[in-house]
């Protein structure tokens, strides 16, 4: 079954003093996520990631379009037991302790009392907060709060977990802890939908990613496929720097160290470059194909030049 189907969700915020100026934040978005997938929703700041999540959670209402979660209409209260949500830069009631907070949320999600006690102990353990369970949240570090945030999102053992920028603002250790928690959710068979602008995290965790920019979906697919869609280039190194002038027009970047020159060439120009270098009496040292990275793909699809073309 499909875990999430986004059916043309669109959002224009009404801004201005009279709330009469529409500000488009999300163009009609269509997206389907399978059960058990870990799905990365990528985009630069202001792309519309949080808007999409707030629409799905029923925090704001769409201008048009709809969505289905596990086959039900997304506003159906019955479906809410099956989803967990960690907002962007979350704040929690800081007068509560971690276990009081988890107990409150579990109550709201309808978890029976005995079950609650077990789940709280389990999750505090799992998020490395067992020792801090009784401490008030106002004394928690950012990384600990983020882990509490993940714990509250899964306290009721939902099928789908939505995380909005779960790693942003954390130090490398904090990021790794969250990464490992997401991997463990994946192992448990949960569907994880998370937004991020940190590409290495998406690359390490996701089965599939979508790239969104200015409210428009720019690409979607398996990470490897997206990488291979980026331009294929090769790095060529040769001895005989004098030839650089003759081939400069073919190179996207180049540099020289003594007699050795290095240049990057597009795949279709590689033969021509090698031909010219031979004619210039240079000695070829190496030709290395450069694989595209997710970053190449991301940059190519989220620059404004692309926005005009696309």
């Amino acid at each position, binding site marked *: 079954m499909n875990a999430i189907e986004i059916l043309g969700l669109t959002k224009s*915020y009404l801004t201005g003093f009279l709330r009469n100026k529409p500000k488009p934040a999300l163009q009609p978005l269509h997206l389907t996520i399978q059960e058990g997938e870990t799905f990365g929703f990528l985009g630069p700041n202001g792309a519309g990631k949080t808007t999409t999540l*707030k629409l799905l*959670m*029923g*925090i*704001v*209402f769409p201008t048009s379009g709809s969505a289905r979660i596990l086959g039900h209409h997304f506003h159906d*209260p*019955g479906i*809410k*037991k099956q*989803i*967990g*949500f*960690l*907002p962007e830069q*979350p*704040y*929690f*009631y800081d*007068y*509560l302790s971690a276990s009081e907070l988890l107990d*409150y*949320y579990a*109550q*709201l*999600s*309808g978890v029976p009392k005995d079950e609650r006690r077990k789940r709280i102990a389990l999750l505090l353990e799992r998020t490395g907060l067992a020792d801090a369970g009784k401490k008030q949240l106002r004394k928690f570090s950012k990384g600990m709060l983020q882990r509490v945030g993940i714990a*509250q*999102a899964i306290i*009721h053992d939902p099928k789908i977990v*939505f995380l909005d920028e779960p790693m942003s603002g954390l130090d490398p250790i904090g990021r790794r802890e969250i990464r490992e928690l997401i991997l463990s959710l994946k192992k448990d068979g949960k569907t994880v939908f998370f937004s991020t602008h940190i590409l290495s995290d998406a690359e390490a965790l996701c089965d599939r990613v979508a790239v969104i920019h200015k409210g428009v979906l720019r690409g979607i697919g398996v990470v490897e496929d997206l990488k291979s869609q980026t331009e294929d280039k090769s790095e060529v190194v040769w001895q005989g720097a004098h030839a650089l002038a003759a081939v400069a027009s073919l190179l996207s970047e180049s540099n020289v160290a003594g007699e050795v020159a290095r240049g990057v060439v597009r795949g279709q120009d590689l033969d021509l470059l090698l031909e010219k270098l031979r004619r210039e009496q240079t000695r070829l040292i190496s030709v290395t194909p450069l694989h595209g990275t997710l970053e190449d793909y991301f940059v190519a699809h989220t620059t404004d030049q692309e926005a005009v073309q696309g």
Partner: protein
Amino acid sequence: MISRLSAIAFNTFREAVRDRVLYNFVLFVLLLVATAPLFGQISIGLERLILINVGLSAMSLFGIVIAIFVGIGLVSKEIDKKTLYTILSRPVRRWEFIAGKYLGLVMTLAVNATFMTAGFYLTLLVTAHQLTRADAGLLAAIYFIILQFFIITALTLLFSSFSTPIFSAIFSFALFVIGTFAEDLRNFAAMSDGAGKWLVTGVVYLVPNFSALNVISQVSHDVPVSGSLILYNTLYAVLYSAAATAAAVLIFERRNLK
């Protein structure tokens, strides 16, 4: 539904307690007890009269101010700090959230009033060295004060569902002040005539009737409060608060949260 409502109400109460909102009753009691000997020096018969008037008016005003200042942040704080996001992504309807917050604050105010009442009776005991049957009659006035809290909390919640905290506070307090003259306004409306009469009367009846809920001077003269007034005021407070809370829910249901 009940378990979600009570969870939200209890958490609201817990926040108020840990925020030390409730501890103002200590201040109230200390003030009363400390100044009690002064009342005794005025004159024998007058001391009780003044103590009751000052004590109960202060209790009402203290509670109204807390109701407004906690009330304006009840929902807006959860929106600003985005704690509401983690609540609305659960099987909680928006009306349950509003109703739970309302009940939580009313519960806080009632507990607060209970402590203040205890302090008040303690002061009566200190000044008069005994409690009489007439003193029990004061409970009706205190009950009406709690009914005032029901209404003002609902109104604050209503205003804060569409306006900023500052304006909500101003609107609520203004309505409280106007409401203490509700009986006069009603008499005034009844005297007016012509086409505007129905309009004026309608508007005047929308103003919460805080004057009917204020029997402080009556009980201070040991005039008993009738059972029918207690019944009437209870119904009035419950219906008025329910209507205001329902209006707050209607507005909140449609709202896009930041």
